[in-house]
Every structure is written in C-alpha cells, then in structure tokens.
C-alpha cells in the first residue's frame, strides 16, 4: 500500500508497510498512477504511452527503473505482514493508570466531555484510601513492567491536591522495595496553581498538561468560570510562572478548537507569543448537534488551516526559532515499533482509569459508562474478558483501519470516540480520521523539508 500527496511544492510518497518516505518528482508521481504491483522489470508500454506527450520517453523509463529499484529493495509496495503480530500484546500487563481524583471542576467549559467535570456521576473527590488502592492495583497488574505511569486527571485534579500529593508519596515509597519506577503526570486548568503546588509538581511530575485554548477571547468563550466569566486572566499569569520555574522538564499547553475558531493557527500563535513553545491544540470531539461541534462540512476549512499552521511553523523554523506542535511531531526512524503501532493507546488493556468510587474503566473517556465498567478496586473485581476485547481492538480488527494508509501512525484512533460517535470501538470515527490524516500529511511535509535541507 502506498499513499502519495502534494504539499508546499513537494511530491511525497509513503510506502505504508516499510515506513519508507520518499520525496519524488512529478513524473514519478504521475507514473505511480499507472503501475500496480507486482512490478515487472520494464516499464509497461501503456504507461509510457500515457505520459509520452508530457515527458521525455528516456526520462519515463529511467524513472520507472528507479521505482523498480525501490520495489526490489522492498521500499515500494512492500508487503503488509504485520497481522501475525496483532495478538502479541494480548496478555499485556497494565502499565498506566488515569486517576480521576476529582469528579468536580472549578470551570464550566462548554465542550467538556466529562459533563462539566463530574462525568454525570455527581461531584465527588477521590479519598486517599481509594487512591492508594488504585496504586496497589496498578502494581499488582503490572507484572514485570518496571516503568509505571499515573496520570492525575479530573475534573480539576488540583481541587484534590492533598490526595494527589499523598498518592505520589505513597507510590514513591513503594519504588525501591518493588523495583518499580513511577512517572506521574497531571492535567490542570491552572486556577489553583500556587507556589506550593508548582514546587511539588515540578519536583514530581514527569509531564504536565496546562489547559488553555489560545487567544483570550476564544478561551473565555468556552472555558468559563462557575459564574460564567472568562478564565484566561485567572490562570495565564500562573501558567507563565509555572513554565518559568519548570525549566527543561516536559510540559504542554493544550487546548481545544471548535467550530468557533477554525482559524486556530491564531490560537497557537497567541500561545507562542505568550512564551510557550510546546503546544497541542486539538479538535473538539462532540455530538454534532452541539453548536460548537465540528462536522465533515468543515473539513476543507480545517485542512486549509493545518496547511496554514504548517506554513507558520515553517516560518518560525526559518528564523532559527522553535515551536513544537504536538500533532506535527513525527520521528521517522526511532519512533515506536510496529507492534506498538497496531493498537495505539492500549486503553482497557495496558491502560485503565479509576473513578473516586473505585470503579475501573478502560480510560477516562469511558468513565461513568456502565456498559464499560471493568470492575472495582474496592471488591477486587476485574473483567478480564473486557480486557481481552480491548487487546483485540487493533488495526487489523478495525475494518476501516485495515485498509487505511495512516494506520501505523494513528493506530486505530481513539476507542472511546469510536464507541461514542461511530457506535463501536472497532468502527473508525471518520471526522477524527480525516483530521488525523491531514495532520500527518503536514507533519510528513515538514519533516521531509527539514531532512532535505539537512542533507543539502
């Protein structure tokens, strides 16, 4: 399988199964429309005839010969022989846990998938005993995995900061004894950040996600305080202070774009102008009946905007400056192995979420959906059949993914979004897919430009 596209003056060819990325010329691009595997040694006459009015015959044959060389080297039309690995990670230990420490929030964001913070379950905080039992559950299910991840999420996790702190200290106390290493992350809206919390987070958290949508007017339209007023002025000075003290450790500012800001490049640039250079802005995932929701009719505008964003990033790079947009990050040589790429996030299999009442769910997005409750850390129940269902949700069991060129980059998409908006964890949610594919094309183009420039 191949995928080819033209962007910003480059013809780019991806050989899906080898992962090979080739920058090709217009003739190669056209020729690839006229040949199909298996390739023969000589250029098919009908391909020569079709192109001879536009290109020199010697060039066509030379170009075909180069394509044939790639084919022989298994860098073009290479075989898809990964399905045999699809069941490799079925019995995987659990290595990551999302702790929903606060089903409560001090914001009332319009688009919140968590039902304005409480996941429809009533506003509750996780107590320390439950959090400790969740850590014990992770340790028990992690088998021989040494590196474990715990994400503090909500609602707003800093509304339950003492439990966050004590849970970290508890987990740290187990590390040496059990030969485990915890990596903690937290996602916060920043309203409650103060010196004590910043110190603790910077000391203990491997990654931090700071939620902000970009420009003040855009942020405040969706991210409202309980009294309906905007939140930007409350958190932005705290985010800046946090970032200044964070040093070289990882963090992102992360926001959501909606139908109201399809010019989201301006939001990314606004965050950059505020001093942030690690940025993730993502499409809102919501019922299309919501006024702010995205729909397929917006796709052309969204695609154009990602190209505009790529162009702005290109310009910043040209000035010798740096901005890292999360969804354009791509490592073409040292990225995850093909086996990791078959099922992506690993929710319900390597990754689970725990709610304040001790409920276990495949991930934070499934929290509160009774059908997907996997068990409880209070009574020790855990649905291993459901774990198997998630382990078996890979790109070869998802019919749309199996035939998609982007399958080794998005790895089958978000199972929760698939369930909520396409009816089944195995059904691809087309809106997300199309956006992901466009982001990948932009990412591949930016990467190709960078590598070509380095090799000149």
């Amino acid at each position, binding site marked *: 399988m191949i995928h080819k596209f033209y962007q910003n003056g480059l013809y780019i060819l991806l050989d899906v199964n080898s*992962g090979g990325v080739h920058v*090709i010329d217009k003739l190669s691009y056209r020729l690839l429309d006229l040949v199909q595997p298996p390739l023969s040694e000589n250029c098919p006459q009908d391909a020569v005839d079709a192109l001879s009015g536009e290109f020199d015959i010697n060039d066509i044959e030379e170009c075909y010969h180069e394509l044939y060389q790639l084919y022989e080297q298994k860098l073009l039309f290479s075989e898809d022989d990964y399905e045999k690995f699809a069941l490799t990670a079925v019995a995987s230990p659990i290595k*990551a846990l999302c702790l929903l420490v606060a089903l409560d929030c001090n914001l009332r964001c319009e688009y919140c998938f968590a039902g304005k913070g409480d996941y429809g379950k009533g506003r509750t905080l996780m107590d320390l005993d439950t959090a400790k039992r969740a850590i014990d559950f992770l340790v028990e299910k992690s088998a021989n995995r040494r590196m474990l991840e715990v994400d503090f999420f909500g609602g707003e996790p800093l509304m339950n900061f003492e439990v966050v702190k004590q849970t970290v200290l508890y987990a740290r106390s187990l590390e040496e004894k059990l030969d485990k290493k915890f990596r903690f992350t937290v996602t916060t809206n920043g309203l409650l950040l103060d010196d004590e919390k910043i110190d603790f987070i910077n000391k203990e958290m491997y990654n931090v996600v700071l939620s902000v949508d970009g420009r003040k007017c855009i942020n405040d339209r969706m991210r409202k305080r309980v009294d309906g007023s905007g939140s930007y002025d409350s958190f932005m000075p705290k985010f800046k202070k946090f970032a200044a003290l964070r040093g070289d450790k990882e963090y992102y500012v992360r926001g959501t774009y909606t139908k109201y800001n399809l010019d989201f490049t301006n939001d990314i640039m606004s965050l950059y102008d505020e001093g942030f250079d690690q940025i993730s802005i993502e499409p809102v*995932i919501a019922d299309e009946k919501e006024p702010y929701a995205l729909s397929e009719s917006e796709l052309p505008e969204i695609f154009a905007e990602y190209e505009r964003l790529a162009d702005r990033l290109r310009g910043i790079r040209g000035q010798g400056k740096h901005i890292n947009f999360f969804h354009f990050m791509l490592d*073409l040589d040292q990225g995850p192995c093909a086996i990791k790429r078959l099922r992506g996030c690993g929710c319900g299999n390597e990754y689970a979420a725990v709610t304040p009442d001790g409920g276990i769910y495949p991930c934070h997005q499934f929290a509160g959906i009774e059908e997907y409750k996997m068990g409880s850390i209070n009574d020790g129940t855990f649905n291993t059949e459901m774990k198997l269902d998630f382990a078996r949700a890979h790109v070869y069991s998802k019919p749309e993914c199996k035939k998609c060129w982007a399958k080794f980059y998005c790895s089958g998409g*978000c199972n929760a979004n698939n369930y909520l908006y396409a009816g089944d964890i195995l059904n691809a949610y087309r809106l997300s897919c199309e956006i992901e594919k466009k982001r990948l094309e932009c990412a591949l183009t930016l990467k190709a430009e960078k590598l070509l420039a380095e090799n000149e």
Partner: protein
Amino acid sequence: MKHIKTINKANLKQSAEKGGCGKCQASCQSACKTSCTVANQKCERDS
C-alpha cells in the same frame, strides 16, 4: 537517484522483529487526552 530521494531508514519491518517490549509510554498519557497519535511516541527499549 535522479527522480526519487528516500529520506528515512524505512525500518518499520525491523522494528516489528525486535519490538513489542511494551516499555514505551501509553500514548494518551502526554498532551493528547482526547485523540490518539502514536507515531510521535518514543521507543524506550533498553537496547
């Protein structure tokens, strides 16, 4: 080559042969809480 420049190692197949150790980060745990991009994760295999 005159018409084609290959810009990466195209090592996906080799990665499968010695892959699957599971030491890498869960991909939804970083900045990406609502959509899943995996290809930007790091391989964390020891060797």
